[in-house]
């Protein structure tokens, strides 16, 4: 079975989804979905260790070798993203029951979990595949299921948010399709590894440039990089709480992966004359995203929406790392990808617990939540501290490497901006802390009403992982380092 390892993490939810649709009872569907997700996660862990020890794993689907067939080509980068997505996905599904049972009508719950599995399969498929067109197909699987999941939100605005996301997402996907078409026209191949070999041989070509431009714009729409982020706050705010956790922790991460993969493995931008200009653009957009996102987050009256804007800002940090354009920068970007999944997973999941108990994510209704749900609130604060980047948490490791990368390039202004951006994070996290531990309005006595056990366990686990990876950062740091080295160093180690 070991030789089948690369395909298993994708295959399990892929086959699991239709099988799940056959289950009539929602509880059964939930149990089944969890089982599938956990199994997929275990396979990913095994795949990760194999990749770590033995290097790149290839797998020819249908037995047809690349470039004639579709190939999975798992290097450290793929393995890292797969690990994050499947791990967080499994954790969220396990924690989801109470929240889903509250927010989703009885008849929809079964299919809700089918859609979750489809989304998971799509995201994992994107992260695993070595074929450009296959990537598009799986992108659409994840996108379509996401639109439906967002539309399940309790408010009618969820429908509009889902529609906007659908329009923007489809434009993005079509742009990617155009880009892939141009690439195919230039090279005659769809395999990313093959593309990576044939494209540089073409020399500087306007078609290649246009292809890259369209793919980048398309991916950035999915990534919600400023100024293409307009769909994100609505979608995150209006979606059911669990869906928000899922999207925030996984979906943008996968988009970032695609951006990195196309930039470095397919186009080999590091050798291009355009690299300098593009790096500047990435850094500029990233910095604007950090500040615009954080500033809006600071003044938001709704915590869920605030956190959504915070995601825009955090994506900015990741893109800055990408824009620095060195091994260190890329490494920082990947480390933040890993850590941010943990932070936002914990934050949004804790928020889902608040919504479950309080019924709203408005700051005014969260007053005194710290005494009502002490553990969940503590976990939220811990993850928030990690988001700020205080030493001792995973967030610090991200920021440290980002700052290191900026310093190595003598970009002192950028360094200052990164720190100032972190400070803005502190402001909106602090706003929550103040609210959470403030006296409640009026004389209402606060009953202690902690989140359901299953949910609470996952929240606390994610928060503690933030702490753990703040002290023992070897896993993300070394993996990201190896992946960045392989992407930029040229030799696939």
């Amino acid at each position, binding site marked *: 079975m070991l030789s089948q390892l690369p395909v298993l993490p994708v295959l399990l939810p892929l086959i699991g989804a239709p099988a799940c649709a056959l289950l009539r009872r929602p509880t059964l569907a939930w149990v089944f979905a969890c089982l599938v997700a956990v199994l997929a996660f275990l396979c990913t862990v095994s795949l990760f260790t194999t990749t770590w020890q033995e290097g790149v794993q290839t797998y020819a689907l249908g037995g047809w070798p690349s470039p004639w067939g579709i190939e999975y080509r798992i290097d450290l980068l793929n393995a890292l993203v797969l690990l994050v997505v499947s791990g967080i996905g499994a954790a969220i599904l396990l924690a989801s029951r109470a929240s889903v049972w509250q927010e989703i009508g009885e008849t929809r719950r079964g299919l809700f979990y089918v859609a979750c599995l489809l989304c998971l399969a799509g995201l994992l498929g994107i992260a695993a595949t070595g074929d450009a067109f296959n990537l598009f197909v799986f992108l659409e699987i994840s996108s*379509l299921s996401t639109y439906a999941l967002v539309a399940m939100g309790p408010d009618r605005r969820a429908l509009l948010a889902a529609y906007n996301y659908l*329009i923007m997402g489809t*434009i993005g996907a079509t742009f990617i399709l155009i880009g892939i078409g141009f690439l195919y026209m230039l090279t005659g191949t769809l395999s990313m590894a093959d593309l990576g070999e044939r494209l540089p041989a073409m020399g500087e070509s306007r078609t290649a440039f246009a292809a890259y431009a369209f793919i980048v714009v398309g991916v950035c729409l999915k990534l919600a990089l400023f100024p293409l982020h307009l769909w994100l706050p609505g979608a995150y705010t209006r979606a059911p709480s669990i869906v928000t956790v899922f999207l925030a922790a996984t979906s943008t991460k996968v988009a970032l992966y695609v951006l990195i993969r196309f930039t470095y493995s397919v186009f080999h931008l590091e050798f291009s004359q355009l690299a300098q200009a593009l790096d500047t653009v990435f850094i500029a957009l990233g910095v604007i995203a950090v500040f615009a996102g954080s500033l809006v987050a600071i003044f938001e009256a709704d915590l869920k929406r605030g956190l959504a804007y915070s995601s825009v800002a955090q994506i900015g940090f990741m893109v800055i790392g990408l824009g620095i354009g060195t091994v260190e920068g890329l490494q920082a970007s990947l480390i933040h990808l890993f850590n941010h999944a943990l932070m936002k997973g914990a934050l949004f999941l804790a928020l889902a617990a608040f919504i479950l108990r309080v019924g709203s994510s408005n700051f005014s209704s969260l007053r005194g939540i710290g005494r009502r749900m002490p553990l969940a609130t503590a976990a939220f604060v811990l993850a928030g501290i990690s988001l700020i980047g205080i030493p001792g948490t995973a967030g610090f490791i991200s920021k440290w490497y980002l700052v290191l990368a900026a310093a190595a390039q003598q970009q002192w202004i950028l360094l200052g901006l990164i720190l100032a951006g972190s400070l803005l994070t502190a402001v909106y996290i602090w706003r929550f802390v103040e609210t959470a531990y403030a006296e409640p309005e009026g004389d209402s006595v606060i009953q202690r009403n902690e989140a359901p056990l299953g949910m609470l366990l996952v929240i606390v686990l994610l928060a503690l992982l933030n702490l753990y990876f703040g002290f023992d950062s070897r896993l993300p740091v070394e993996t990201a380092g190896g992946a960045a080295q392989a992407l930029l160093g040229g030799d696939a180690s």
Partner: protein
Amino acid sequence: MDVFSYFNYWVVVVLMMLGFFIVIARGNLVKKLIGLNIFQTSVFILYISIGNVSGGAAPILEEGVALYSNPLPHVLILTAIVVGIATTAVGLALVVRIHAAYDSVEESEILAQDEPC
């Protein structure tokens, strides 16, 4: 043939942009989806044009035929068509629900009913 060598692509670009224009400029939610449809179909035309070989036959193997058009873009576009109709179906379903919730499918009227979401 020289003039024509890019003419085809340019027309496709014009088609794509007409579709794209409808998506972003029109406020009617159904019209936007129609625009998206046109946009995507035009991309299909681009792909099929890529696969075109002058004088090539349809890629169904026959004795005595040496020149076929490229089958790979056809396969890709078969998949892409499915993706397109799937998106349209989901989008239309959303439109129906939006209409039920807001009693309108015009973006400006809907936005006027809610504070921004």
